[in-house]
């Protein structure tokens, strides 16, 4: 019984959502024209994409998780083509990759 208590994650900490580590790249790397952005978001505590809620605005990425483990809300200096955005969650690496075409 004692061990069980020690191993149980602190439920208070779980309620406080944290900002995940992320990187956003532009493609192509060089030149004035940016065709699309790729965001890579590290979500080590996520098991399935089912617990993720991703919304893309014209200039915004909003990510929430069902158990409020992670929260990300950022604005970007680009105009995104919302209709053409795609997202993949890699269950092995726990990385959410979002591809966002940019309108110029």
């Amino acid at each position, binding site marked *: 019984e004692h061990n069980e208590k020690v191993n149980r994650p602190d439920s208070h900490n779980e309620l406080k959502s944290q900002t995940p580590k992320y*990187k*956003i*790249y*532009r*493609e192509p*790397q*060089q030149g004035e024209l940016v065709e699309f*952005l790729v965001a890579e978001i590290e979500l080590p505590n996520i098991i*399935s*994409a089912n617990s*993720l*809620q*991703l*919304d*893309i*605005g*014209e*200039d*915004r990425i*909003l990510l929430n998780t069902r158990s409020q483990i992670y929260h990300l809300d*950022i*604005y*970007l*200096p*680009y*105009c995104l083509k*919302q*209709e053409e*955005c*795609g*997202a*993949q*969650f*890699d*269950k*092995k*690496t726990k990385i*959410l990759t*979002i591809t966002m075409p940019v309108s110029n």
Partner: protein
Amino acid sequence: WEEEQRKVRADWEKERGNQFFKDNMLNEAINCYTSAIQLDPINAVYPANRAMCLIKQEKYAAAEVDCTTSIELDSKYTKAYHRRATARFKLGKFEEARKDYEMVLKLEPSSKLAQSELGKLEQLIESRNLVFPVCKREEEKSKKALKRILIEEINDESVEKDQVK
């Protein structure tokens, strides 16, 4: 016999070139290495040495060509890859420079210099195309509605196993 003679003369030109290089007489050194290349065109050392001078003269495109020649003659010549990486870096060919450093480390895994240069290069490559979020005032934010994005799951091992069956 004549071929042997030419090789001996080529080596002698290289030694002169090395001395000029040490004395920072780069044009003289280049002339010696050029003679060495003409006398013995299949020796990988001579174009690589000329490349070393060309890099010092900031003639990076010519240095890259010489390094490539050297590598074609000896695909395991570490110095040629290292110098080509230097030249390519200066030419802004970062991805190609990275491949050369990786080759140096494949041939010489303990090379501290190549390790640190590759590390710096990778940081530079990454930072070049990084995009950072911005703070926007309310009136700067887009008024368009958010769109819910479907997230596809990949690398699901249990599913992959099922598909194999």
